[in-house]
C-alpha cells in the first residue's frame, strides 16, 4: 500500500529529472540525499532572507535619518564596544545554528550503508564507462559498456539534446548502491542533480559515494569538471527501475558476455 501514501499517486505529475530551459529551481529529488540538500538550501534561505531584510532596513534607515538635510552636523562617534560585541556575536551565533544541519547532512552523505551492489564509473575523454562486476567469477566476466552521447542528428522525437546517451546506467530502486568513481585520463566529474550526486573522477583514485533511489525514473546529468574539447558532450543517464527488472537486465547482459 506504499503507493497510496504517496500523494503523487492521486495526481498525474511529471517529475522533473532533467534540466529545463530557464530553470531557476532544483530538479525533483529522487534520493534522500538530494532531498536533504534541497531542504538544507531552503532552511538556509530562511536565515538569508531574515539577514537580508534586516541589513536593507538598517541601510535605508541610515540613509533616511542621516540625510544632510535632516542631519547637518555629522556624528563623531567612532567606537561602541557594546554594539561591536553584538554585531560580532549575533552573526557567529547564526552561523553556528546553520552549521548544525549542514554538518549533519555532510556526514550523512559520506555514510556508506551496507551496499547491495557496486557500480564502477570510469571517466574517459569523452565518454563514461560503466562496470558491474558483482556477478563475475573471472576477471573478464564483468558487465562493461561505454556510454556515448547521441549526436544531434541522430536524436529521435522527444529525446533531449546533448543529454541522451546510447547506453544508460540501469540501477534498482529502494536498494543501497555503492558507486566507485575514477578516471582513466584526466579529471572528470560524475554528477546527477536529481540524485544529489556530484563526485570528481580522478585518475589513480577510487572515489566512493552511495546512492539510494526513492523512485523509478530517467535521471540526467553531465560531466562537471572541465576535461577537454568534448567536456560538454559526455552526459550521464541513470535509469531507475524496479529490482526485478534490474535483475532481468543483469541476466540478459550476462548472457551477452
Amino acid at each position: 500500500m506504499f503507493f497510496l501514501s504517496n500523494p503523487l499517486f492521486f495526481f498525474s505529475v511529471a517529475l522533473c529529472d532533467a534540466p529545463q530551459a530557464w530553470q531557476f529551481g532544483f530538479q525533483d529529488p529522487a534520493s534522500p540525499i538530494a532531498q536533504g540538500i534541497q531542504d538544507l538550501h531552503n532552511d538556509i534561505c530562511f536565515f538569508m532572507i531574515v539577514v537580508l531584510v534586516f541589513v536593507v532596513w538598517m541601510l535605508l534607515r541610515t540613509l533616511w535619518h542621516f540625510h544632510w538635510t535632516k542631519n547637518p552636523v555629522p556624528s563623531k562617534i567612532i567606537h561602541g564596544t557594546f554594539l561591536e560585541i553584538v554585531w560580532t556575536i549575533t552573526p557567529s551565533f547564526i552561523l553556528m545554528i546553520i552549521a548544525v544541519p549542514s554538518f549533519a547532512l555532510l556526514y550523512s552523505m559520506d555514510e556508506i550503508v551496507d551496499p547491495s551492489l557496486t557500480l564502477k564509473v570510469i571517466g574517459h575523454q569523452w565518454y563514461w564507462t560503466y562496470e558491474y562486476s558483482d556477478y563475475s567469477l573471472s576477471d573478464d566476466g564483468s558487465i562493461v559498456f561505454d556510454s556515448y552521447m547521441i549526436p544531434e542528428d541522430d536524436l529521435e522525437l522527444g529525446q533531449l539534446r546533448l543529454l541522451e546517451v546510447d547506453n544508460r546506467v540501469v540501477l534498482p530502486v529502494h536498494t543501497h548502491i555503492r558507486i566507485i568513481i575514477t578516471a582513466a585520463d584526466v579529471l572528470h566529474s560524475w554528477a546527477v542533480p536529481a540524485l544529489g550526486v556530484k563526485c570528481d573522477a580522478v585518475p589513480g583514485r577510487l572515489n566512493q559515494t552511495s546512492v539510494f533511489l526513492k523512485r523509478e525514473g530517467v535521471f540526467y546529468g553531465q560531466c562537471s569538471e572541465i576535461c577537454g574539447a568534448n567536456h560538454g558532450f559526455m552526459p550521464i543517464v541513470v535509469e531507475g527501475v524496479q529490482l526485478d527488472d534490474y535483475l532481468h537486465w543483469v541476466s540478459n547482459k550476462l548472457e551477452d558476455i
Partner: protein
Amino acid sequence: MSDADAREVVIEEEPVVEAAPEAAAVELKTTPFDARFPQTNQAKHCYTRYNEFHKCQAENGEGAEECEPLGKFYRAICPQEWVEKWNEQREEGTWAGRY
C-alpha cells in the same frame, strides 16, 4: 472446473516456475563495507582485496574454493583496467606485492 482443465492450468504455469530460478541466479551481493577503509578513496581497499585473494590462492592453491568470495570482493570494487595491469605485472614477474 474439471480435472483436465486444472491440469492444463498447471502446465501453462510451468515455464514461469522455470524462469524464476534463472533470475534468482543473479545474487544481489557486493563487497561489504570494511572498517579498515572508511575513507572516500577506496584505492587501497581495492589493492588490499586483490592481495588478499592472491594470498589465499598462494596458501590454498590455485582455484581454491574458499578464495572465490575474496575474488568477487576485489572484482566488485577494482576497475578492470587496474586488474588487467596488475595481472600483467604478476605474469611478467614485476609485481611489487608479496603474492
